[in-house]
């Protein structure tokens, strides 16, 4: 494997020394491009009090290519599908090499605070969200309790 670019080393150091509130990202011992991530559910969202596990991988072309991010914890959200894949513009077409791991994770946290059922990835969840919003939010809250409780 090619040596780790200076930028990745700098980003990793800063994630540890100056972490984003409510977010942790720890590189894997064997692969410094692979991060184990946790994101706390934002207050006053259905994900409040939940801690969600994610994985983040920096492809060889990073930062010319966006990091790959996926939820590992089950979550009921219109922009996150059953496999944990996330529908978020900065992870796809709106990626820019001036963005960083921390800004991407902040965007994911913001997505939890404001689900967008009009741009769905999980179609059935989005339909549910649009038609019975209260019930969908209750379900999201229930799943948070069931699957995203801090161990």
């Amino acid at each position, binding site marked *: 494997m090619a040596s780790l670019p*200076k*930028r990745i080393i700098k980003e990793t150091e800063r994630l540890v020394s100056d972490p984003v509130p409510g977010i942790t990202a720890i590189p894997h011992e064997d692969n410094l491009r692979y991060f184990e991530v946790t994101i706390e559910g934002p207050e006053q969202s259905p994900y409040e009090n939940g801690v969600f596990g994610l994985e983040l991988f920096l492809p060889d072309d990073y930062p*010319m290519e966006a990091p790959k991010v996926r939820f590992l914890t089950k979550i009921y959200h219109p922009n996150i599908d059953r496999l944990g894949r996330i529908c978020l513009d900065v992870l796809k077409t709106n990626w820019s090499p*001036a963005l960083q791991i921390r800004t991407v994770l902040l965007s994911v946290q913001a997505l939890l605070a404001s689900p967008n059922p009009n741009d769905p990835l999980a179609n059935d969840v989005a339909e549910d969200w649009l038609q019975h919003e209260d019930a969908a939010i209750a379900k999201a809250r229930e799943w948070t309790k069931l699957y995203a409780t801090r161990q």
Partner: protein
Amino acid sequence: MSTRRDLRNHIHELYQENGASNALLQMLSQLIPESMQEELLQDEKQGCPEHYVDSLPRVNKNKIEDHETCSICCCRYKEDEYPLVVELPHCGHCFDLECVAVWLSKRTTCPLCRDDVLSHKPKVDVSQVEMEDDWGMYG
């Protein structure tokens, strides 16, 4: 007309029968019209022409502050004894030439403000230019 859900179930069945065989992937790829397949491929190649990147104005070393960093590699420009820094003409954002050249070979946006760098026509001021009377008369 089959609903999206029917289609999904059908694909799920096929997947269960065949596993991750190529047949299923091939079938799925046929769902994308050929014209769009090309578009998708082209999309990946869209970037600035090489001559555009080569023509970007350089930033003089003594105009670079010691603490200024390139937002692509996150390193201070002055870490390099001979920093090669360029400025995007319209928005004025600066980057290491080496860093921004890679990005602009794939895309046409400024990494910092997403300004489409190719959307601006170069401004050539012709008001001060006088046509010479003997234009083209002498070799």
